[in-house]
């Protein structure tokens, strides 16, 4: 803009004629620069939004998505302190309460200004309150868990839908459920019920949005200890229920290429030794 306007102010901008420009554009030595760039990674040019991006599963998702070439919008109630949120042009971070619908709509708008749209939504943020049996469960606590784990995700899915429906390769939603959906434990009524409701919400979304080329999957993590959910309050009573953690291996998250296939993605797992060391730590 500076060059064109400076030349214009001096009496007119005159670029090289089209044939000369074409010769440079298709000059073998220029084309070689493009060839050197090689094959782009699998998610190049795509945009993902991850809630709860500052730590735990959300942070692992951000890293996995970036590694595969996606641009990532990270949202978290906590400040996003990793250097990538200020320095990596492929990252856009927003400190935001996901239950604040207006603020989340603003995050979506800013994500569009920065990257042009939204292709993937990873609904990861959630809370797991201190264990409470139903006979001692306050309405307040129940509603708070529902607000974060269900209501906020419904609102975000609704507000993101117009963008996901315009995704060049088809939109994708990954809902982070919980092993508590198929296998709940005592004292976790609010959390388990909220995650079950969220799972059902995702099933309906899959039914409603398939025709918009939006794929929806739920994954139910189990025994992922290095997340914000595992506070001392939560960890201690849970230990008594643990039998023996299943043998688990490396981290792998894969977003399948074609939207029609609905095979669930594999999930973040920890080695048995990491699990045992987490338990030992919590006992100290």
């Amino acid at each position: 803009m500076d060059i064109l306007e400076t030349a214009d102010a001096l009496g007119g901008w005159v670029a090289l004629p089209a044939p000369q420009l074409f010769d440079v554009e298709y000059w073998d030595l220029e084309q070689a620069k493009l060839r050197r760039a090689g094959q782009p990674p699998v998610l190049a040019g795509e945009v993902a939004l991850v809630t709860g991006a500052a730590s735990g599963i959300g942070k692992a998702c951000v890293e996995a998505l970036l590694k595969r070439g996606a641009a990532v919008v990270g949202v978290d109630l906590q400040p996003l302190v990793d250097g990538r949120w200020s320095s990596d042009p492929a990252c856009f971070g927003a400190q935001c309460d996901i239950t604040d619908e207006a603020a989340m709509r603003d995050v979506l708008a800013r994500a569009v200004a920065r990257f042009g749209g939204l292709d993937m939504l990873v609904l990861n943020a959630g809370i797991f309150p201190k264990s409470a049996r139903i006979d001692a469960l306050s309405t307040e606590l129940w509603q708070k868990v529902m607000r974060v784990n269900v209501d906020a995700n419904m609102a975000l899915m609704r507000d993101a839908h117009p963008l996901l429906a315009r995704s060049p390769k088809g939109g994708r939603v990954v809902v982070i459920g919980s092993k508590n959906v198929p296998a709940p434990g005592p004292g976790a009524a609010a959390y388990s019920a909220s995650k079950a409701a969220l799972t059902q919400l995702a099933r309906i979304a899959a039914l409603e949005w398939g025709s918009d080329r939006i794929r929806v999957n739920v994954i139910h993590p189990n025994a992922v200890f290095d997340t914000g959910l595992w506070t001392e309050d939560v960890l201690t009573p849970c230990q008594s229920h643990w039998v023996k953690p299943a043998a688990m291996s490396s981290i792998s998250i894969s977003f399948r290429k074609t939207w029609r296939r609905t095979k669930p993605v594999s999930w973040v797992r920890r080695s048995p030794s990491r699990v045992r060391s987490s338990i030992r730590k919590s006992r100290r």
Partner: protein
Amino acid sequence: MGAMQSLWNDAEAAACRTDLELRAYTSRLLGQDRSLVLHGGGNTSVKLSVTSIVGDEEDILFVKGSGWDLETIQPAGFSPCRMAHLLKLSRLDSMSDAQMAAELKNNMTNAGAPAPSVEAILHALLPFKWVDHTHADVVVALTNTPDGEARIRAVYGNSLVIIPYVMPGFELAKAVAGAWPKQAHAGTIGMVLMGHGIFSFGNTARESYERMIALVELAERHAGPRATPTGPVGVSAAGDWPQIMADLRKAISDVAGAPMIVSYHADARSLAFARRRDLEALSQQGPATPDHIIRTKRVPMLGRDVAAYAAAYERYFDTRGLREGAALAGCRAATPDLVMLDPAPRVALIPNLA
């Protein structure tokens, strides 16, 4: 475009132990100023006498290697080319691009060094130890006016050699070899390539670098100050603009054949440009310098009709740059096996959006 000033620092320069380190240092000084080296443009060199492992003394041109950016270049970013061979190459009548690239690579003293700049032969021809070359915004602005050459002469008198536009590479080196004896004299301190950029020369690193700064400063004084709107304007008032943007991104990605990132600039500067009355005449000619074209395409898209843009690009490709008749049949790019790049725009100017 702001006032130019030398960033030379005696202490930093004194810390350079060799001429090559000094070469890297002043190259980084150039690279720090975006108005000199838009998008990685520009290259630098130094000619040094080097003794090989078997005791032979050779004149070597250390020229910026490909893949290195002036802003961050280190001594390892310079390709050591044998001067004697480069000068012999310059006397050939013709050479294909592929041959030239192979000759440059095969005549380095370090096989592990990066491929030399395509301007290596040109640098070798210039009879100065230190050569700095930039695509200074203001100089390109001056050369790309209807009376560009007269303006350049008015600004610089006869202190510079002036070369009309020639495609970069071997043809440009030949053009300079032909023009140099006619134009150069004892007072020559630099060279302007019309539609391309500017060179400065010197007997020391500092002299060559500070001449570049002084030459660009002269052009800025000629161009005069220009009011620039500043400050953020915020996003478009249209409430559905995120969906308009997402539609636009989908359309662009569809013609590009892969998902694309689209970023939206609604600052005062961009909006004022996109809302100029003469936007079409000003923006639909071509990029500031031809080496931007693989990133920007020849012209930006005006408005949001991606299909029309793609169709126009296909026509431009089929006619090898809107050539007609004999020009089309005879052009160097007329080969039928040339493969078209994706026809999607890289820049869009949307007056009611940004």
